[in-house]
């Protein structure tokens, strides 16, 4: 494999890692506050549809993005209502949201556009355009660093850079602000937070809505950045890979970046090489596709480090009387 191919794969890996990263950070906020969320997939899917639909109708990708985020946050609100207000089972609520999104998106798409459950192709300002970072032309001739900068780092759409910036932002919010401290505390010991006079319900709703917003960005990137329209089930299990990455990263932002990039890299390799041969043994492409899931199971099993979720995760908080 030569240098140029490697650059192309890295470039593609960064694109493919972006929706995973945004969804993974979304899950990070929610699960750190003690709300399990297996509905990342559904929220992404809903955002993908509404962003594509509104970008097509209005001709502006940013209005599409807003619509996608709102749709995702509405679903997040339902999850919050079920798992915080009515103390329902968070996992069941997540399952319901995944199905709701899978069904409603196609149903509405068929109703609005009558193209077999997809949206019309997006063009021009209705799609995220690639941004060329400053100095990428000037730096290009510099050996090694130049091509890496101009081909891998530069030339992505705005959401890729937003996703990358969201990592330090998440770290800062969670570990350097009062809100973050309280949010993490509510996922470990909500009774203590309640005792100190801070609303557990409020904090958890805030976390769930942030999660919805980030899933909205992830879904919008799928439909208006990575591809140019919405198609049925286009999230294709990415919400679950993001969940896997979250566990792989043990609920930490910087590690989430690493995990998502690794899974993006796996996908990029799988796309590029249909028949990969390692040390003379043919590796089926399906093994590459299954690898993120297998790795997650191995990590969960605690054979390679131990993944310990936030202690109060999954349990509804009942205020003492």
């Amino acid at each position, binding site marked *: 494999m030569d240098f140029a191919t490697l650059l192309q794969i890295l470039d593609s890996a960064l694109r493919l890692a972006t929706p995973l990263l945004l969804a993974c950070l979304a899950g990070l906020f929610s699960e750190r506050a003690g709300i399990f969320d297996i509905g990342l997939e559904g929220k992404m899917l809903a955002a993908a549809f509404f962003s594509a639909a509104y970008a097509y109708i209005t001709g502006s990708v940013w209005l599409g993005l807003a619509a996608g985020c709102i749709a995702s946050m509405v679903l997040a609100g339902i999850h919050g209502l079920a798992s915080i207000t*009515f103390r*329902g089972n968070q996992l069941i609520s997540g*399952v*319901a949201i995944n*199905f709701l999104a899978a069904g409603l998106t*196609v149903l509405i798409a068929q109703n609005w556009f009558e193209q077999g459950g997809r949206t019309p192709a997006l063009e021009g300002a209705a799609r995220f355009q690639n941004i060329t970072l400053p100095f990428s032309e000037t730096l290009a001739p510099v050996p090694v660093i130049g091509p890496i900068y101009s081909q891998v780092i530069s030339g992505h759409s705005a959401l890729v850079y937003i996703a990358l910036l969201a990592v330090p932002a998440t770290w800062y919010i969670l570990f350097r602000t009062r809100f973050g401290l309280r949010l993490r505390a509510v996922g470990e010991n909500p009774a203590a937070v309640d005792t100190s006079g801070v609303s557990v319900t409020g904090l958890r709703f805030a976390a769930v809505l942030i999660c919805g917003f980030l899933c909205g960005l992830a879904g919008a990137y799928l439909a208006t950045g990575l591809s140019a329209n919405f198609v049925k089930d286009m999230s294709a299990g990415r919400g679950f890979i993001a969940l896997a990455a979250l*566990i792989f990263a043990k609920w930490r932002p910087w590690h989430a970046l690493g995990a998502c990039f690794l899974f993006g890299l796996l996908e990029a390799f799988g796309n590029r090489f249909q028949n990969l041969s390692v040390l003379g043994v043919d590796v089926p492409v399906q093994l590459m596709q299954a690898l993120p899931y297998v790795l997650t*199971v191995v990590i*969960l099993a605690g054979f390679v480090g131990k993944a310990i*979720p936030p202690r109060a995760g999954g349990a509804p908080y009942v205020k003492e009387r």
Partner: protein
Amino acid sequence: MPKWVDVALIPLINLALALAVSMLVILWIGESPFEALAIMVKGAVGSAYGWGYTLYYTTNFIFTGLAVAVAFHARLFNIGGEGQAALGGLGVALVCLAVPWPHWTLALPAAIVGGALFGAAWAAIPAWLQARRGSHIVITTIMFNFIAQALLVYLLVGPLKASGMSPETAPFPDGAALPTAHDIAPWLGFRPSAPLNISFLLALVACAGVWLLIWRTRLGYEIRAFGHSEPAAVYAGIHPTWIIMATMLISGALAGCMAINSVMGEAERLVINSVQGAGFVGIAVALMGRSHPVGVLLAALLFGMLYQGGAELEFEMPAISREMIIVIQALVILFTGALDNMVRMPIEKFYDARRLARQRNGRGTGVAAE
């Protein structure tokens, strides 16, 4: 709260809410919800043709619903029915293709063993990881769904692929063909094309078996005790690892047996995505059926009607696509599973208030024990 409110009234209110929201969705699309309902009911149960499909889907959902229900009794959420059923299909296919079966009466028991074993094996790893390593079974079973999907695609485009274009195994031998509804009861008007087959009776037997297991055996008692309170169960000498393993193996085996109906009874070969989401429908079925075999049977029948009626609906009202079924399914899961307390809390309050009022009036000192 009286028992009938808990087991009948609350689920019915939840279901009514889910259907009401579904009807609003249909109204919003611009079709008449009552007309749509009429088409669905007529399509599902209005003819022998409809019943032939409705009961076929019902059979699938009974198996996957029972699988989720058994796990629920031990307070385990087996979300991996989809993968376990897919692996069950592999087991059934391997058994059916292994020898030229002379007659289905010989092939059926062997296929049951094959499907159950493979389904159980696929549930065994997440179960063991939950029991011994504390890995969350929901996450591991989700991961195993995806791994199963990749594995089956690999096998069906590779080693198991029959000569031909499509990724599927060779057709099963004639001796492995199960009697269909047309073979058994042609006088009821079933056509030869109806997919309903003898597996439906097997599903009913499975319902009875699960009832016996959960409420009439020592293991069932231990499963329920473990589900109610793990510390209490451990104190009573029940071994958690054994219960988690046993429950999940039974759950996986039930999910795997779904393939008897869909792979052996209907397709008569293993195709890609033979489960078609039935594993997930099982979650809705178990929730609605309150994890009781009778409830599961009724809920599976409802979802069978929904699936067949939905197919007819798409045909009659092109504006409503097939995905409407998934929306209804999602709303049923949402209202009966996640938002259950929305209905339960006010009803509980009502009964509590009534009891208090009675006590205050001095009429019902004995009622307090209710």
